[in-house]
């Protein structure tokens, strides 16, 4: 069964763009990647750095990842998206690492499909599951120089 999964994942590779990098994310590139003549709908989610958390001023976020495993988990996620929403054509998931200043994107997810319901549901599922399963970590850096490692509400560690 692992071999079968691997074969499927390999077949899907040219329709998935996975990128985990310190460079600024290009929304335009993600959009271009998922655009194709057979699709009528593109759904995008962009996560950006907010300047506040519970009243504290946030200066920037700092991301790190278990990079190889995160890439594998994202490919696995693409596979799960396609299993759940077979009409999805292209998927682009880009996550930035290192310092992400306020207003800049840390994550962009783009999906395309012939009709809009599938792309919108897929993008929503993708960000929910990315937060729950992909080994990426962020630290908030506050105005006073203190920092705090964050924990996604979706992350199910404590309930194990």
């Amino acid at each position, binding site marked *: 069964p692992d071999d079968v999964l691997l074969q499927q994942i390999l077949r899907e590779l040219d329709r998935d763009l996975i990128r985990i990098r310190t460079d600024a994310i290009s929304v335009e590139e993600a959009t271009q990647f998922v655009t194709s003549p057979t699709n009528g709908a593109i759904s995008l989610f962009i996560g950006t750095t907010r300047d506040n958390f519970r009243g504290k001023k946030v200066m920037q976020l700092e991301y790190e990842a278990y990079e190889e495993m995160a890439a594998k988990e994202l490919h696995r996620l693409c596979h799960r998206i396609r299993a759940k929403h077979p009409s999805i054509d292209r998927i682009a998931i880009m*996550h930035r690492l290192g310092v992400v200043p306020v207003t800049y994107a840390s994550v962009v997810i783009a999906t395309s499909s012939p009709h809009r319901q599938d792309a919108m549901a897929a993008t929503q599922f993708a960000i929910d599951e990315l*937060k729950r*399963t992909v080994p990426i970590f962020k630290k908030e850096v506050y105005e006073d120089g203190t920092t705090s490692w964050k924990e996604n509400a979706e992350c199910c*560690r404590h309930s194990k």
Partner: protein
Amino acid sequence: MDAGTVTCRLLFFAKARELIGRSEQSVQLPRTINTKELEALLFGELAPELGPIRSSCVIAVGQEYVLPDQQLTLSPGIEVAVIPPLSGG
């Protein structure tokens, strides 16, 4: 090298990396071990600094999350990672 053990790469991320002061170390681990035994080794002898965050961490072996009661077979050079709460996105 003990026939019953293998040399593994022990990896630390985020808060675990900060607490322990390094991102990686080499360790000898039993070739076969279950999740509970592995956790006891990691958070007990090998990295007691991680005690305070033990309950919020999970382990990945060979870049896959382990189940709470999994029987594991470790191969030489395999990555054993201590993974604190996820906060991607």
